[in-house]
């Protein structure tokens, strides 16, 4: 397969690297450039809230590829130089250091930026967790902390709470939902996750939004809740969502609406594609536009983008998948379960804390969730595939 004369991938994390690898695997031999904002070679993010934070892995283990494997990619890798602008007509990306990089095809894989609370930048002791450097900064803070508050009742917040608790910190988890991950898991399994945290000594302050931070002499002292209460803390981790890193596309003429808007081929404009957390694309089988912030999507979407760059013209119609490890519990989710769906336990039992749950919406399987049953859950994934491929009534 010949493909374009040159491909520039903006973003050197999981999606960017996987795009480059998929292009080569599919036989592309043209010029390939990988541009990364961070100075680290491509590394993996899921361990940052677990193994790296807890100190069980050194940073070297998070490398996505060994140096020899990276050099086999036969690509130019530019690190520590964020993209600052894109000219769509000439397909030229400008970087912070002043480079102008042009290519026949450009892949936008710039990921996410964590949301922050007002005033967060002026207070020490307040952390986010997105990058390797964030994780390395948070670890000593947690070890020295006397009281930690995690703001955020989603996947990242609960993972950090579990890790911080295992590290011995006194942890409070705050968020607006009645139970952690309730909007995805529904109330019964959200409550089960809440129980797991409570059993391990995490204090849950849920069902109440966090309105801001309190501080003294430039140091955080706690978080304020919309009930008027204040949760005292000397370390606060803000993990209540992230926004697509699309600021650098301002003025490019590309459509940005909670992510770079792409068609069913993950194409934002002629020769310009989006992959990973940053991309919102049209999922033909679900009949809606979707943006997925998970690790599996980063590689799967990269694969689809590489195929389309090389002219395969295939819609990207994945079965979404994510997993989370919290304490000794491994949770796998295939499909898109949501809080309103009807939940049935189809393997194992909640009493044993080992089961697969099926989520049905209007009689159609929307997703399956495995709780300490990853293989059985993966086998049930087919039910989601069947529901996706069934004709829309």
């Amino acid at each position, binding site marked *: 397969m010949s493909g374009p004369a040159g491909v520039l991938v903006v973003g050197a994390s999981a999606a960017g690297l996987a795009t480059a690898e998929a292009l080569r*695997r599919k036989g592309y031999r043209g010029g390939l450039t990988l541009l990364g904002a961070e100075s680290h070679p491509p590394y993996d993010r899921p361990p940052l809230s677990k193994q790296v934070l807890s100190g069980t892995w050194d940073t070297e283990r998070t490398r996505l590829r060994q140096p020899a494997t990276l050099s086999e990619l036969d690509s130019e890798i530019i690190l520590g130089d964020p993209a600052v602008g894109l000219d769509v007509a000439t397909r030229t990306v400008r970087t912070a250091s002043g480079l102008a990089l042009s290519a026949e095809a450009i892949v936008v894989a710039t990921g996410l930026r964590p949301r922050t609370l007002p005033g967060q930048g002026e207070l020490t002791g307040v952390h986010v967790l997105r990058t390797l450097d964030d994780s390395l900064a948070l670890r000593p803070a947690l070890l020295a902390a006397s009281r930690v508050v995690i703001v955020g009742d989603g996947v990242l917040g609960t993972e950090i709470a579990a890790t911080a608790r295992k590290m011995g910190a006194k942890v409070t988890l705050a968020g607006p939902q009645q139970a952690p991950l309730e909007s995805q898991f529904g109330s019964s399994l959200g409550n089960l996750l809440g129980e797991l945290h409570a059993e391990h000594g995490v204090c849950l302050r849920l069902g109440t939004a966090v309105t801001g931070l309190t501080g003294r002499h430039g140091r955080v002292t706690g978080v304020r809740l919309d009930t008027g209460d204040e949760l005292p803390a000397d370390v606060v981790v803000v993990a209540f969502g992230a926004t697509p890193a699309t600021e650098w596309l301002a003025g490019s003429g590309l459509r940005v609406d909670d992510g770079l808007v792409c068609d069913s081929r993950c194409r934002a404009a002629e020769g310009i594609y989006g992959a990973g957390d940053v991309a919102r694309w049209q999922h033909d089988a679900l009949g809606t536009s979707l943006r997925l912030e998970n690790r599996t999507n980063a*590689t799967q979407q990269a694969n689809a983008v590489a195929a389309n760059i090389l002219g395969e013209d295939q819609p990207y119609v994945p079965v979404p*998948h994510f*997993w989370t490890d919290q304490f000794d519990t491994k949770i*796998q989710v295939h499909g898109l379960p949501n809080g309103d769906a009807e939940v049935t336990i189809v393997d194992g039992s909640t009493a044993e804390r080992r089961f697969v749950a099926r989520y049905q919406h209007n009689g159609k399987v929307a997703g399956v969730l*495995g709780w300490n049953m990853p293989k059985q*859950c*993966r086998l049930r994934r087919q039910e989601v595939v069947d529901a996706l491929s069934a004709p829309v009534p």
Partner: protein
Amino acid sequence: MKVTVDEEKCCGAGQCALLAPEVFDQREEDGIVILLDAEPVESLHTSVREAASMCPAAAIELGESS
């Protein structure tokens, strides 16, 4: 081609078993990868390469580029 897996990195996603079921399976109890064939025949190389690249935990390493 020589395939190795890092059980400690494996997150139990099972993508490898979906993409190359002749070469990868998962343990019943915890979903960790089982390597069924460390030296797969050439006809399987494409799917094994895809599985290694698509592994969301980068737990599959391939030796030799042939």
